[in-house]
């Protein structure tokens, strides 16, 4: 197996006195889809947010341990969190496009990064929208407001916006829980496509979604990483009784 895209060692997160993530050691493989599952409050979103230092933005949050992005510790003092967030993009539960045109949403990141050439921006916008499987649906309405798109289209626009700054990793936090089954199926199909070029980490409440899309699944409970393994093994013969009880719906 190649070098992991992300590796955590003895990773702990506190919010004030609440120990939300406990001593997690995890390797996320490159160009794979890794799902993180677990009941509400188990620390899965918090863990995800460690991968691009989003927890830095929460007052009271304290992170201990190591998060390596392609071998580099992103919590080192001299690391610029903004640069990390460019390399590790994020998509959220509720589609959150900017109240701007479709085009400007996709061009927003590249512009921030100093790209001003119209032709270059045109090319990035098109490529990102194509990669997010949205281009055909919006190519004739690039200047319309993004808010007029359907929920599923808005979510794919958010994915395009993340792709536009050429990240290595895409983090998805419940990316389909606000979408209908058809829009969900499109995003899941897209995730599989994206994994050819990017490393994808998805947090989901929907266990069937984890089973459908991911290569590896991590199960968290009370801040701890209980079990981590190939998705087929986790869903056929989990080794840990807690995992078994959670995925079979006996608690959670």
């Amino acid at each position, binding site marked *: 197996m190649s070098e992991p895209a992300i590796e955590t060692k003895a990773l702990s997160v506190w919010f004030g006195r609440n120990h939300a993530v406990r001593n997690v050691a995890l390797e996320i493989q490159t160009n794979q889809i890794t799902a993180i599952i677990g009941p509400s409050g188990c620390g899965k979103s918090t863990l995800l947010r460690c991968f691009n230092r989003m927890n830095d933005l929460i007052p009271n949050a304290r992170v201990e341990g190591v998060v390596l992005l392609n071998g580099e510790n992103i919590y080192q003092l001299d690391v610029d969190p903004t640069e990390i967030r460019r390399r590790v993009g994020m998509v959220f539960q509720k589609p959150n496009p900017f109240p701007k045109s479709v085009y400007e949403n996709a061009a927003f990141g590249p512009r921030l990064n100093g790209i001003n050439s119209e032709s270059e921006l045109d090319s990035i916008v098109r490529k990102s929208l194509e990669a997010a499987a949205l281009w055909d649906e919006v190519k004739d309405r690039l200047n319309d407001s993004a808010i007029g798109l359907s929920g599923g289209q808005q979510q794919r626009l958010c994915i395009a916006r993340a792709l536009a700054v050429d990240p290595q990793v895409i983090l998805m936090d419940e990316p389909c829980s606000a979408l209908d089954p058809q829009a969900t199926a499109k995003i899941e199909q897209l995730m599989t496509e994206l994994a050819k070029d990017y490393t994808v980490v998805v947090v989901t409440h929907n*266990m*069937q979604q984890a*089973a459908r899309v991911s290569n590896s699944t991590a199960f968290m409970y009370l801040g701890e990483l209980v079990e981590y393994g190939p998705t087929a093994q986790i*869903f*056929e*013969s*989990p080794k840990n009784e807690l*995992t*078994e*009880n959670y*995925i*079979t*719906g*006996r*608690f959670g």
Partner: protein
Amino acid sequence: MSSYARPLDVGLNAMAEVLLEMVDLAERTVSASIEAAAEGGKLDAQVRIWSTELQGKYDDVEDKAVELIARYQPVASDLRVIKSSMKIAYDLARLGRYAYDIVQVLDLVNGGKAADKPFLEKMSKKVLEMMRLSFETLRTRDVQMARKLIEMDNEVDSLYRGYLKGLIDNPNLTAAEAVSTALIARHLERIADHAWYIAESVSYMVTGTYIV
């Protein structure tokens, strides 16, 4: 952490119930055919009815399994129980079918009796013992219990092979006697195999691996 009955459990229990009915029926069917082989007698009508009944119950288990998969997308031990139940139900239906095959062989030979009574009695005893142990493994889900079956299955296999070899060189048997005994021995050997498959499926159900 609280435990509560899930809607899936209702379906799993209904499926398990049919499987246990099949176990009782399979035991009755195989025992009856073996008895017929030993004592003679016209049990083919009854054995045929039971064998058909087993096939019907197998279809029922399969229908229930598919419905549970479609409705609940089961995973982990739930999924393994469903997969194993389908396989075990098939094995039980096969037991019924081999029992029927045995009484059909008896029908072919004069007097409805197989020739080599002492040999068939010896083999039947082993096979029945295996089948009962296999069923006990299924009822209790105690995989340790199934270990003994490996050895027993090997014994049945070598009994069967040894007998076939001896048969070729035995000038004292008529063709009808030789064929009927060989065929019945063959069906008994297959019954032993399916008893072993059932134990393997119980192992998969409980541990996730077929290695007993």
